[in-house]
Structures are given as C-alpha cells and as structure tokens.
C-alpha cells in the first residue's frame, strides 16, 4: 500500500537532493537523476500485478485538511506507466541535450518537481488533492517553459501561466459547487450523487472540465500550446506534449466517466470539440515551417482524436468499454511517438541550433540511425499498419461505426468521413516534415555532424521505436488488461476484437492516400515557392485571425483599462474633492478687487497730471462702476492701475476692524435685537 506514497515522495525528495548534488558536481547529479527515474519506473512496474485484478487505495489522514487519498486503478496505472517511462527516457536524453544550456541545476530541480506533481495528479482520488497537484504541476512546468529566459519564452510563459491559473480558479469554482451539492470530496462518492442532480450538474461538470480542457489544449483554449512547446527546451516540451497533455485528458475522462457516468450531452460536446481540434490542428500544422511548431499543432490534432474517443465512451454508454480502452491505448501510443519525434527535433536543434525547415532541409539524409527512428515515429503517428498508431486508430474507427449502428444517426456517418480526412491531414504534414528533413539532398550536410549524435541521445529513441513496433505487432499485450479494466467498472463484455482485419487496413490505406494527395497538391504547389536557390516554404497562417491576439487580448485590455480608470477614481476621490475645494478657496481668496478709484489719481506721477487736467471735471462721475470701466479704456496712458488688493487681505483687515470696540458694541446691539426677535417669533 505504501508503495504509492513512496512513488509520490521519491521524485519530490529526489528534486531537492539532486539540486544539492548539482551544486557540487554535474556528472554525479545526472547519474543520480537517471538512477532515480529508473527506480521509479521499476516501482511502477512492480505495481502492475496488484493493479491487474483490482484497484488499490491508500489514505494519509489530515494532510492538507482533507487527508491525502491515493487510488490507482488500471486507467491511472496506464497513465503512471507512460509518465514513469517518459520521465526515465527524457532524463537520459536531457543529460546529453542540455550540455550547451545554462542553469541546468534549476532545470532538473523543476523537472523532478513536475514529475512528482504529475504522479500526484494521476494517483489522487480526493478532488482537492487532484486540484493541488494539478496547480502545482502548472507552476513547476512554468519554470520549465521559460527556461531559456529570452523574450519569446517569457511571452509564452506569461500566457501559459495566466491560462493555467485562470483554469485552476474556474475549476476551484466548480469544486466549490460540487462540494456544496454533494457534501463529499471523494470522486467516487461524488459520482454517486452528481448524476441525479438536475441541470446544475452540467454547470459543475463544465466548470471542472474547463481547467482540464486548458491543459488538454481543447479548441478555444489552445492558444498557449504552440508558443509554450516551441519556447520550452526540447525534453520538457516532449514531456509537456507527451504527459502533461494526458493529465488534461485524464481529468476529462475522470469527470465524464467517474463523476458524471457517461452523460450524453457532455459526451457529444466533447466529440464535436474533438473534431474541431483535429481539423484546426491539422491545417495549422501543415502551414508551419518550424518543425517544433508542426509537432505541437500535431499533438493538438491528436488530442482531437482522443477527445472524440472520450466522447464516444459517453455516447456508447454501456457498450463504451471498447471506446474507453481504445482511448487509453491511443493516449499511450501518442505519448510514445510524440516523445520520439520531439527527441528527433531535439537532436537537430542541438546540432544546428535552427528549427525552420528551409534552413535544415536535407540534414538527415545521411544520418541512418536518426532517419530510421524518426521514420518509425512518423509511421506510428500516421497509423501505418504494423505500428501502434494503426491499432488505436482502427479501434477508434470501430467505435465510431458501432456508435453509428447504435444510434442510426447520420451524424456519425459524416464524422467517420471527417475522421478519415483528419487521418489524411496527419499524414500530409508528417510527409512535409519527413521529406523536407530526410529525403532532400543537401550537400553541405553530407557526412558532417555524424559524431555529434551521441549514443545517450539515441538509446531512448531506440527504446521508444521498439515499443511502437511491439504494440503495433502484439496489440493484445496492452489491450487485454485495458479491456478487463473496462469490464471491471461496469461496461458490457467486449467480444474478441480483430484489429488486422481487411477493411481496417483498407481504411488506413485510404487515409494514407488522402494524405499523400494533400501533400502533392496543396503543400508542394501552394506552400512551396521555387526560387533560384531551390524551394522555400512560406507560412500563410501568420496573417490569419488568431483567437488570442485578436480576440482575448483586446477584450481583456479594454476591460482592464475601464475598470482601473473607475477604481483610480474611487481610490483618490477623497483627495480629489479635497484638492478641488482647497484650490477653489485659494482662487477665490486671491481674486483681485480694485479698491476705490479716486485714490488712484492722487498717486498719479506729476508728469502725467497735466494731461489729466481735462478729466478732473468728470471725477465725481467716476463713482459708479460703469463710468470706471469707460474711463479705463479711455486712459490708454500707463496710468497707475487701481490699487488692487487681494480679497484675502481685505478679509483679514475687515476681521481686525470688526473686532474693534465700536463694532463689537454694534454687534452687541444686533444680538440683543436678534434674541428678542427669535424669542417672540418662535415663542
């Protein structure tokens, strides 16, 4: 039982110990990390027999208030297995890949922390623990994303973190509601209460799934994916797309299967979102020139396939067993070939430091081993018969046909065609990638750099390639435990499934054909520009409307500006009014008052007095204001301006005059009269 706790704690401690060793000696730390992940993998493997017959649980009391409740069933075990394997291989790979990079110590520290958090996500049964590890994972993986610390990675990191936190908070909202309606935090018990709650359950489901959808980069929330994958160093982007993507999908499965038990409307929604993801990812992947970006968009489109699988599980209801195991298998396969492809691009980037196809075309022509592994990865991805991709795709295809038979709804017939075209798209952009790098002939890359491709980088790719082929050839080895798990949790018994049947091969050939056609007609013709030095791809999609920069940002910025203006107003309204009042009083108090005009003549300098003789007669006319104004205009001479004095001085003088003796007596008289009036009037 407590092996679960060991599995969880080991990478956590490893991160700190690794960091400590790292400060001392780099080599020892790399060795330590590899050994650690190897032990972890072994521990996970030893778990398999126990998990095979029934799920194991373990409860650590009052940690984090609600206690740490760990549970591993076959679904979770599959996820654990691929993450353990992936981490082991990428650690080996990154020891070689990161040599040129700086602050490696910090990288490995966050690398291990993310590993612990991911395991936590896959193991936790209590939704608060799930949420804790999920948030922890986004924070620690953030550090991996902006490892290069240049402007581009900061920008990617900012949107990654913003969306992760926003997703987390919306999920928290959903958890609040779920806790309020069900009173419990355990996913299983929730699953008993939530389904019969009326339409509030859809709100709860959607809110909780929102956070997972962001991590799984479902259609409207996918904008962070291409930026984050390209910005991150290759091993971490491999893990990001291989494993962290799966946590999102795993969450969606949990919500759909365990909490909502196959709720039809949510399933259909996921199914359609899957379709959108496939096409959006596929088309955009075709357009790109940066190979990492192509693979990033390809994972988005593969997520689309998996989403369709999850949707089918919901749609098929009781017979969804096959669809569930197909989806899980698809997730496993996708992890393997996606990490393989990323490792390949990693090696290219490590050597050339360049990712755009035009610059690295023909690099791999002579690199036999790299070419072979990369080819296996591409074929796996394109679901070429004999490779693992084919197995999961045909199973998915079977599930769609079954759904069609079940509901007799033409919608599924149409989506089946889309399914095949989607497969074609995958083939198209993979061809573009493979042909450009490995098939083109490029003189300046002949024979060079062979020695740079080290064994330590190639071994993980070899293992992955081997696994891809093994699953392709012996699918039942993985499939039977999955099917037994599906039957275990209440699906109907699944009759023996024939994978390598004739029509399944025909279907995959059809999608391959479509892919080649798209490649020939569209990519070669439209995207390839011939110029004197040979061809270069251009990327039309840069100008397209992208949801993030054209929709999210402007709206948020506008809201931010409006509210901050409103609040700054509230913030210093008191100072504002005080200042206005003070200025008002000050301005009133020093307005100029022209005091009596006649004194002004006395002070006129002698020279000008002759001139004024004539005016003397009008002196008494000056008493009224109008005359004064007229006389001012008339006197263009620089007459001494009327003796002006500030109102303030007037008040002060007035005040002192007022308190003189005779005025005070006058005031006394007024007060006596006022009192008499007051008493008699009011009396």
């Amino acid at each position: 039982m407590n092996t679960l706790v060991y599995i969880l704690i080991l990478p956590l401690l490893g991160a700190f110990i690794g960091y400590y060793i790292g400060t001392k000696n780099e080599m020892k730390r790399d060795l330590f990390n590899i050994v650690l992940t190897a032990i972890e993998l072994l521990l996970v493997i030893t778990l398999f027999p126990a998990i095979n017959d029934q799920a194991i649980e373990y409860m650590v009391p009052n940690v984090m208030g609600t206690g740490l409740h760990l549970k591993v069933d076959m679904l979770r075990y599959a996820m654990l297995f691929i993450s353990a394997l992936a981490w082991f291989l990428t650690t080996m790979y990154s020891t070689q890949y990161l040599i040129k990079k700086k602050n490696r110590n910090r990288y490995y520290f966050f690398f291990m922390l993310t590993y612990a958090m991911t395991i936590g996500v896959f193991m936790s049964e209590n939704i608060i623990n799930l949420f804790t590890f999920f948030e922890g994972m986004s924070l620690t993986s953030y550090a991996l994303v902006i490892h290069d610390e240049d402007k581009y990675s900061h920008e990617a990191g900012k949107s990654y973190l913003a969306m992760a936190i926003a997703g987390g908070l919306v999920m928290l909202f959903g958890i609040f509601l779920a806790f309020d309606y069900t009173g419990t935090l355990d996913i299983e018990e929730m699953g008993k209460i939530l389904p019969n709650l009326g339409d509030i359950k859809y709100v709860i489901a959607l809110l909780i799934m929102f956070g997972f959808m962001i991590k799984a980069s479902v259609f409207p929330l996918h904008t962070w994916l291409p930026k984050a994958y390209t910005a991150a160093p290759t091993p971490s982007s491999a893990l990001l797309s291989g494993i962290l993507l799966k946590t999102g999908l795993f969450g969606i499965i949990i919500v759909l299967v365990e909490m909502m038990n196959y709720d039809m409307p949510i399933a259909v929604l996921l199914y359609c979102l899957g379709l959108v993801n496939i096409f959006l990812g596929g088309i955009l992947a075709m357009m790109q020139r940066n190979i990492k970006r192509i693979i990033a968009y390809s994972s988005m489109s593969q997520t689309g396939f998996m989403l369709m699988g999850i949707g089918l599980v919901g749609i098929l209801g009781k017979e969804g067993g096959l669809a569930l195991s197909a989806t899980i298998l698809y997730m496993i396969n996708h992890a393997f070939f996606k990490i393989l492809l990323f490792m390949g691009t990693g090696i290219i980037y490590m050597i050339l430091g360049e990712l755009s196809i035009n610059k690295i075309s023909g690099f791999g022509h002579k690199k036999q081993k790299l070419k072979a592994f990369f080819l296996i990865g591409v074929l796996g991805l394109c679901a070429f018969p004999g490779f693992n991709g084919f197995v999961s795709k045909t199973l998915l295809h079977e599930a769609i046909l079954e759904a069609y038979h079940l509901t007799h709804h033409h919608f599924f017939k149409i989506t089946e065609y889309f399914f095949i075209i989607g497969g074609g798209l995958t083939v198209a952009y993979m061809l573009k990638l493979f042909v450009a790098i490995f098939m083109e002939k490029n003189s300046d890359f002949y024979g060079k750099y062979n020695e740079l491709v080290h064994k330590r980088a190639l071994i993980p790719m070899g293992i992955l390639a081997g696994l891809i082929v093994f699953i392709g050839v012996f699918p039942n080895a993985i499939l039977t435990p999955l099917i037994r798990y599906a039957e275990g949790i209440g699906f109907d018994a699944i009759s023996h499934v024939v994978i390598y049947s004739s029509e399944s091969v025909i279907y995959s050939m059809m999608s391959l054909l479509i892919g080649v056609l798209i490649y020939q007609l569209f990519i070669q013709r439209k995207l390839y520009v011939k110029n004197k030095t040979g061809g270069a791809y251009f990327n039309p999609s840069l100008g397209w409307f992208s949801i993030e920069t054209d929709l999210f940002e402007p709206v948020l910025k506008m809201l931010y500006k409006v509210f901050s203006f409103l609040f700054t107003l509230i913030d210093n309204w008191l100072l504002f009014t005080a200042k206005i009042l003070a200025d008002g009083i000050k301005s009133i108090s020093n307005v100029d008052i022209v005091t009596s005009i006649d004194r002004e003549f006395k002070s006129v300098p002698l020279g000008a007095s002759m001139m004024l003789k004539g005016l003397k007669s009008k002196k008494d006319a000056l008493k009224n204001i109008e005359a004064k104004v007229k006389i001012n205009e008339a006197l263009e001479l620089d007459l001494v301006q009327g003796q002006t004095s500030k109102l303030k001085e007037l008040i002060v003088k007035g005040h002192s005059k007022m308190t003189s003796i005779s005025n005070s007596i006058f005031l006394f008289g007024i007060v006596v009269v006022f009192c008499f009036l007051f008493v008699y009037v009011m009396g």
Partner: protein
Amino acid sequence: MGQIIMLLPLGVPILGTLLITNKKIIKDEYVTKFVAGVLIVNFLLVLNALFGNQMLQIHVLKVNDFLDIYFKIDQMTRVFSLLASVLWILTAFYAFEYMKHEQRTRQFYTFFTMTLAVILGVAYSGNLFTLYAYYELLTLCTLPLVIHTGTEEALASGKKYMIYSFAGASLVILGMMILYSITGTMTFTPRGIFNDIEGYDQNLIRFSYIAMFLGFGVKAALVPFHSWLPNAMVAPTPVSALLHAVAVVKSGVFSLIRITYFIFGASMIKAVDVTKYLIPFVVITVVMGSLLALHQDHLKKRLAYSTISQLGYILLGILMLNPNGLIGAILHMINHAVIKITLFFAVGSISHMTHKKYIHQISGLGKKMPITFICFTIAAVSLVGIPPTNGFVSKWFLGVGALNANNLFYIFILLLSAFFTAGYLFPVSVTAFFVNEKPNLEVQEEATLSDSLEPSPFMLFPIVILTVIIIGLGIFPNAVINFLGGVVADAF
C-alpha cells in the same frame, strides 16, 4: 489571583516602554536586548493565558455601567493575542537589524513596544468602551511610528493617517452613542446582547451598525477610507510590515468581528438586513485593491493595495453571517497576517541590502538573494490560494461560507481577485528569478556578481520561519480550524 496574571500581558509592555524612555536605566546598546526580553516574556504570558480555559475577567475601573475598563479572555481574544505576540517577536528580530542604519531608534522601540500593549488591550477588552479607548490609543501610538523618518512626506502621510483614523473613530463613537442609548449595555456577550429581535427601533440599530462598520472600516481599509494605507508605506519596513499588514488593520477587522457577533449578533443583523448596504463597499474594496495593485511599480505600494484587497476578503467573510464564513474570515485574518508580513520582510530586506524599491530594478536579483526570493514566491503562491499553502485553506472556507449564504457572486469575486493577486505577485518573482539582463548594481559594483546579497541572519531568520509556518499551516490546518471552532461556538 488568576485575574492579576491575566492583566500581566497588558502591563509588561507598558512597563517596558516606560523603562526604555529614560537613558539612565537602559543604555543605548541594551535597548534591543531589553525589547527582545520584554517581548518574549509577554509571549509566555499570552501563552499561559491560552491554556487556562476558565473565563477570566476583571473590571479594572468600573465607575458607572458605561465608563468601565473591563477585560475578559475568550477564544477570540486568544486567537488575536497569540497572533499579535508571535508576529511581534519576529518583527522585533527583523527590526533590530533593519533599524541599524536608521536614526532615533530609541523612540522607535518605545512606541514599538507600546503599540503591542495597546493591541493586546484591544484583544483583551471585554466591552465596547474599552475596545474604543484602546482603538483611539492605537492611532496615537502608531502615529510616531508612521512619521518616524521625519521627512516632509512622512509628516504629510502621518497627518492623513491621523485625519482618517480620527474620522473613523468619531463614526464609531456616533454608532456607540446610539447603541448605548438603545441597549444601555456594551459588554461583549456571545450571540449578541439583543435577546429578542422585535421591541427595538429597527433603523436606529441599522444606522448604528453602519456607522460602526464604516468607523472600524477606516482602520480595516474599507474602500472610501482606504487611501491612508498606501501613503503610510513611507514608514520604515518593520513598521509598515507589522502595523499596516498586521496590527493596525487587523485590530480594525477584529473589532468588526467583535461588534458583529458579540454585540449585535448574527440573528439581529440578519433581521435588520443591513448587509445589503455594506456589501457594495466590501466588493469594491476586494476588486479595486487587487486591480490597482497591478498598477503600482513601487513594491511596498503594491503590497499595500494587496492588503486592502485581502482585508476585503475578511470583511466579506464577516458579512456572510454563517459559521463557515466566520471561520474563513478569522483563518484568513491569521493567514494573511503571516503571508503579508513575510512579503513585507522580503521587500524590506531587498531595499535594505540594495536600496531598490521598484520592480523594474530587481531583475535578476533572485540569483543574488535566493532565500529571500524563494520565501517571497512561496508567500505569493500562498496568497493567491494555491492549495498546498495556507492561503488556500482560508479561501476554501470563505468559498464554502459564501455557498452557505447561497451567493455565487461572492465566489466569483473571490476568484477574480485571486487571479489579479497572481497578476501582481508572480511578475515580481518572475522578474527576480527569470529575467536575466545584467542587474545594474551600481551600489555593489565592486562586489562580484557571484557573492550573495542575502541580509544578515537576523532578518533572514524571521522570513524563513514565517515561510515554514505558511507551509505548515497549509498542510496541517486542522489544528487551527478546531481551535477556531471555539470562536464559532461563541458566535453562533
């Protein structure tokens, strides 16, 4: 006899203050040691008050039923006095180091210890009159701390702080007068002094509660009266950390809890239905605080606005008028105190070591001051409410409380503001750790980039302890929660 011991925590700091003032008894170099001694002794006294479970109470001066200085210990007192004395000791250690390069330290320590006595007075007060007396004294003895630097700007902000506090105090007095004329008694009784709802003039009670809420709200940085807090940041860091993150603002919140649950009682406030007038203020405080924090480039100002927003959370928790909301409020009072004081200490040590006060200046500093910035990041994570830390626990209870009051709008406000909190706290640690353009350390030009700029252990020690508390409270919150159960038992 028990009662005399009860009074000791109040007496000891005052005695200490008197001794510090004259130079003959306490020479200059012994001041810091003496202050540390006083604080530790006081902490022990508060601890022993913690464990005695019988209801200790004492009338120090009872002239008539209105004018009596009455101290009583109940669960709420224990929570607040413990929080205050723990954080006071940590701030003291921090201040010993920080104040080395400031002048007039003796005056600082005098008022520093006196403020502790006043805060404990607020915690121990048994009726509204004593609370109000100490509340006024709090303004008076924190004023010299705010204007410690003596510059023109400090005097101006001190003046503003004074005007706001006295305006608030007069509002409180207004409310108290009306309350006293209705009820004739002001002692804190669990579940409020109004035993039956009818028979009282509804709108008088409503007016008195609003007046008192806004009055105490001034100290708790409620929206219309909050702008003294960012200005008070001109004070030295230990002051702004302890006072404006913990002592002063929390005493405002503490008194609000007192009047809401121990004078009016939740049932009366529900009957009088006064919260609908106050909720807009609180909601605006929450959102405005965090939104404006995004604007501030000055580190301490940013933390000040963050305090305003977090206090809005606590007020929201109080106004929910249900057990979960109250637990959430008190828990957040504790958690926010611990988190905010760590953030302020970290910012303080940055400005102490490198005289940098603005965010754009601290890029790449994370490598030089790793421990400080790690603690800063953990505290920031906790303030946002990421689960393993204690900030999440209080947000959880506030959320559940909001649901019990079946009001989804509160949760939306909480989460929106949490998002903004992330918005203004994470960039700080990101610029510190991950932005790497050459840090222009013109001050330490000759210091090679590799050597660390960590502050001395005296400053670092409190920061690390507080971070450990943050994580510890986050992972094992049950101990605190059932300690607060006692308070809720009184209030409901």
